[in-house]
C-alpha cells in the first residue's frame, strides 16, 4: 500500500527523519509513537504526499510519489483518508457538508451518496449534529467528524494524526473502536499518537505493530508496549 524506502527529510537545515524504511501492507494496523516534535506528523505527511522526502523514496499503491503530477496526487489522496490533529474543517460549511467534502470535490452525485452520508454520520454518532457548524462542535465531535470525512471515499488507507489528542478517555476509546472497525473491514490503519495507554488498550482489540520515532529514526517499539 504505502512504502517508505530509506527516506530522509530535512527542513531549515536540520534533519527531522533519517533512513526511514517501512511498508504498510494491506489490512495492517500500525501505531506510530514518539515524543512531541519527533517527526510523527512529518512521517504522516510523507505518506500522503503533503511533503516530499529529501532523500529516499515514498511509494503509494506501487507508484513513486515524485512521479505523480498534481492531478494524479489529488486522485491518490482520495485513496488515503487522513484525520488531522486539528481536524481542518471549512468553518462556513455545516458538518454534513464538511464530511461530504471529498465526495463533493471528486464530483460524485450527492443525491446518490446521501444515504451513505447519513449512514456514516450515524456510524460516528453525529446524525443529530449534521447541520451544526464546526466551531459549534466539541473536541470529540470534531474528531469523529474528521474520521467520517477521512473514510467517506472508502479509502484503502486511513492515517490518523493524534486523533485522541483533545478528547477524554471515554471518547478516545470510542474513536479507537471506530478505527479498529475500519481495520476489520480491510483498511490499512496508521495512528500517530503519544498516548501509550490508548496503544495498550488497542493491543487487546487488534493485532497492531507499534513503531517509534527516536533520534530521527523509525524503530519497532519494544515489549513494554
Amino acid at each position, binding site marked *: 500500500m504505502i512504502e517508505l524506502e530509506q527516506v530522509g527529510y530535512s527542513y531549515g537545515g536540520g534533519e527531522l527523519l533519517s533512513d526511514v524504511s517501512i511498508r504498510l501492507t494491506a489490512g495492517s494496523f500500525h501505531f506510530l509513537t514518539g515524543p512531541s516534535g519527533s517527526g510523527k506528523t512529518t512521517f504522516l505527511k510523507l505518506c500522503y504526499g503533503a511533503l516530499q522526502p529529501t532523500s529516499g523514496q515514498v511509494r503509494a499503491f506501487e507508484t513513486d510519489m515524485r512521479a505523480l503530477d498534481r492531478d494524479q496526487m*489529488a486522485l491518490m489522496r482520495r485513496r488515503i483518508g487522513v484525520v488531522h490533529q486539528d481536524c481542518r474543517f471549512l468553518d462556513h460549511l455545516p458538518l454534513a457538508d464538511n464530511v461530504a467534502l471529498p465526495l463533493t470535490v471528486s464530483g460524485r452525485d450527492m443525491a446518490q451518496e446521501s444515504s451513505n452520508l447519513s449512514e456514516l454520520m450515524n456510524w460516528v454518532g453525529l446524525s443529530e449534529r449534521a447541520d451544526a457548524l464546526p466551531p459549534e462542535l466539541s473536541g470529540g465531535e470534531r474528531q469523529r467528524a474528521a474520521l467520517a470525512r477521512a473514510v467517506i471515499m472508502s479509502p484503502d488507507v486511513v492515517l490518523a494524526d493524534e486523533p485522541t489528542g483533545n478528547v477524554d478517555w471515554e471518547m478516545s476509546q470510542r474513536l479507537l473502536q471506530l478505527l479498529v472497525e475500519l481495520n476489520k473491514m480491510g483498511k490499512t490503519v496508521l495512528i500517530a499518537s503519544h498516548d501509550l495507554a490508548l496503544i495498550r488498550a488497542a493491543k487487546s482489540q487488534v493485532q497492531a505493530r507499534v513503531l517509534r520515532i527516536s533520534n530521527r529514526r523509525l524503530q519497532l517499539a519494544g515489549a513494554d508496549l
Partner: protein
Amino acid sequence: MLVRFSMLFSRDAQADRVVPPSGFTAQLTLFASGAMAFLAVFALALSLASGRLADRWADELARSATLRISAPSDQMAAQTQAALTVLGQTPGIARARALTSDEQAALLAPWFGADLPLDSLPVPQLIEIVEDETGFDATGLRLRLSAEVPGAVLDDHTRWRRPLVKAAESLRRLGWISIALIGGAMAAMITLAANAALSANRQVIEVLRLVGAKDGYIAQAFVRRFTFRAFIGAAVGTALGLGGVLLLPEASDEGGFLTGLGFQGLGWLWPLVVPVLGASVAFVATGTAARRTLKGLS
C-alpha cells in the same frame, strides 16, 4: 480555454459553496469592473465617432475639388467657360459647376457679413468639381489648365484634408488604446482582488487539496465567482455608460465633432460586448492568479 469557459456555465452549487463568500473582494471586483466598463463605453463612443468622422472627411473631401479662377472682370466669364469645357473633357470628373454669386456670398458671409456687395469686389470665381469613382489626374489637369485657363488654380483639398483625416484617425486610435488600457487596468485590479481572496482562503484551499480536490476544481470555484462578479459589474457599468452617452447632445452641424460623440445604428450593439469582455478579462486574470497560488501548495 473555450471548454474551461463553457464549464463556468455548468453551475455546481455545491462546488460554489466550498469557497466562503468574501465581501471585500466581491465589492472591489464589482466596483472595478463597473467603473472600467463605464469608461470603456465612452472610449468606445469616442473611437467610433472618430472613425465615422475620419471616414466622412476622407470620403467627402477625396471626391471633391475646387477650381478658383482669378482674372480681370472682363475675362472672367470667358475663362470660366473655358475651364468648364476643359473639366467636361477631363476623364474622372463626374460633374463641374460654377458657383452662383449667391452661393459665393454665402461662403464669405461668416467672415464679411451677409450684405457683402460681391459684384463690386474682385472675388474669384469658384467651380465645384465632383469626381467619379475613378478620380482624375490632378497633375495633368493643372498642366492643361495652365495652358488654356491661365487664371485657374486647382485645389484638390489634399493639403488640408490629410491632417484632418490624420487627426480623426489618431483620435480613433486613441480610443482603442484607451479601451486596451482600461482592459489592462481592469485585469490588474481583478488580479489583485483574486489574489487577496486566494490568500484569505489559503487554508480552505489547503483543505480542499488534502481531501483530493484537483487544481482545476479549486481554481474554477474562484474563477466562476470572479467572472460572474465582473460580468455583473461590467453590465451595470455599461448600462450607466450608455445612459451617459444617451444624454450627450445629438450630432449637429453647429456643434461640430463634439456633438457627434455617441453611437449610431448598429454601433449601439458594440457596448454589449463590454460585459462579455469584462467577464473574459476576469476569467483569464483569476485563472492565472489561482494557478500561480495553487502551484505553491503541496
